[in-house]
């Protein structure tokens, strides 16, 4: 198994990013949208790794670690919001009804 070239890694990253974006745009389920965002973040992280490998720089991996923690924080906040919404008596995960939130 040969190491993938940076081009291939970037291609994969873009495919992943596009998938995530499509997910955010097309899905209405909040959970699935969160997951799509995770995919996009991971795509970005992959791009950093690939770049780091290409130039033999440590920054790529540093950025990966940071994105990892960012993603965790984002998921935590997102899930917390969803739980709060549920606790406030909102029984749906439909994102398009979010603009009716008042107060």
């Amino acid at each position, binding site marked *: 198994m040969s190491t993938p070239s940076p081009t291939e890694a970037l291609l994969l990253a873009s495919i992943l990013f596009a998938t995530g974006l499509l997910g*955010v*745009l097309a899905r209405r389920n909040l959970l699935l949208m969160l997951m799509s965002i995770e995919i996009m973040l991971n795509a970005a992280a992959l791009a950093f790794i690939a770049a780091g490998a290409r130039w033999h720089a440590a920054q790529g991996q540093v950025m990966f670690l940071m994105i990892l923690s960012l993603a965790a924080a984002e998921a935590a906040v997102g899930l917390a919001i969803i739980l709060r919404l549920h606790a406030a008596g909102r029984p749906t995960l439909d*994102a398009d009804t979010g603009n009716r939130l008042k107060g």
Partner: protein
Amino acid sequence: MDALLLPLIVFCPLLAAGILFVSAGRMPARASCMIGAGSVGLSALLAGRLAASFLAAPLPAGTLHMALWSWMRVEGFSTRIAFALDPLSLVMMLVVTGVGFLILLYACGYMHDDPDIARFFGCMTLFVAAMLVLVFSSDLLSLYIGWEGVGICSYLLIGFWHTDTANVVAARKAFIVTRIGDAAMLCGLLLLATQASTLDIAALLHIVATGPAQLLPATAAFLLLGGAAAKSAQVPLQTWLPDAMAGPTPVSALIHAATMVTAGVYLIARLHPLFMAVPVAMKAVALVGLITLLLAAGSALVQTDIKRILAYSTMSQIGYMFLALGSGAWQAAIFHLVTHAFFKALLFMAAGAVILRVHHRQDIYQMGGLAPAMPVVFSAFLAGAAALAGLPLLTAGFYSKEMILQGAWHANPLLWAGALLGAFATAIYIFRCVFIVFLGTRHTEPTGRTGATMAIPLACLAILALAGGWMEMPDTIAPVHLLSHLLSPLFGTATAEGPSWLLWAGSLVPLAGVGVAWLLWRPRTQARTAPEDAIARLARTGWGFDTLYDTLLVRPFITLGRLNQSDLCDRLSDATAATTRAGSRMLSRMQSGQVRRYAGWIAAGTVVALCLGIRP
């Protein structure tokens, strides 16, 4: 001492006006009367005293000056509130205070049961004060204070009975039409002030006399003529006077017959060197006078309202004065001004007495046969009518009109012919009025009686209307020249008299007019309806000037204003605001609150940004 009397004469009625306005009707009616008439009476006494000392010991300069205070003093222009008494203003002063006092006395009787009598006398005394300012001022700008002051008093008094919309409209019309003339006059003042840096009359006339002939006096003279014509109800700004009869009758007598409407004559006489320097302006003055006197006499022939007959007759008589001014017969104009003040005030007051007795009716065809019921009023009216018609020898009007006819003959025989035609018509229309109102069958039963406060002024003025003319006579009759002699320092000696057949013509024509009136309206054959053909109708409405101005000027102006009521500029700014709001509404639609759409916008924006970044 004498100089101090000048401001005092003005101050008396002014103070009375102040008291009457401040009291705001809390005083009893009798007190208002006494303050109103008394103050003007006091002025008249002071004026008599002043006149006596002025005539007894004429000043070397011929003029008594009294500068009160500096009004405006700025770079390149200064003006003072300053009074001066010369023979011309002396005559005017005596007319204003004397006739004014008689009319106010009459008004005490006429208005005694009006609830607003304090306001009435307040306005009347204010008017007298303003008129005296006009007469005394030796500076054109302080003259302008009086000029506009009498205008506003006239507005207040025409609309005195303000619950009737017609009166209010008539008052407004009177003020606005005269204001148009005033604006022209103000332009004239601006022109003169710009050229001369002063509006002091003596200084101005000196500049006109010595300065090089140029466009300045001509333009200024025409602009001032505009002001004079509007104030004196001359063509083409004459339309306000007949409507002004909406005011109480004493107002018509004082303001619209004896004093204010003659202010134009006074102004031109006061500035006569300016007008003499411009022969065209003189011709214009004479022409305006001639046209007005003929048109107004024609209108007076067919009126049915007794006060409107007198109003048109006033226009016509002031036309005579303008004719005299334009012919250079200054003394004649002033003489006629004086006698006209006597007999026209008398006619108005007698007419007012009649109107009171016949239940405030003014249509002459509803009167008739009133002579036996009110002999005093009838004789007074007859005296006034005789003087107005100019019946020879006996009446004041004869002598003054004769003098004007002489002057017109010297200027241009055509003017003379027109004036003679006017005299003929004058005799016809006023005796038509006399015959229809006082003779024939009675249509309205008169009630009440004319009290002493009204009868005494009538008697005084009747005497003046008859005997007042003896101060100035043609040489053919008797060489009496009191007035011309008095005025000679100002106007120079009068022109020599023409052939004596002029005098004969001037005496016979009014008699012929009375004869024609007798033939047409004598009690037996009297036609008791007004003529109804097209010309008569046109003449009755004042030859259609009102309609013309209404369709040409007033109506379009008001209509356009109404169309633009909400202000085009405002609409433009509102349109800008509306466009902005529509744009923002469109953009705000992007902000729908839907996360997915936001994400889409972010993505699209990133793509666009990347494309732009990569392109070069």
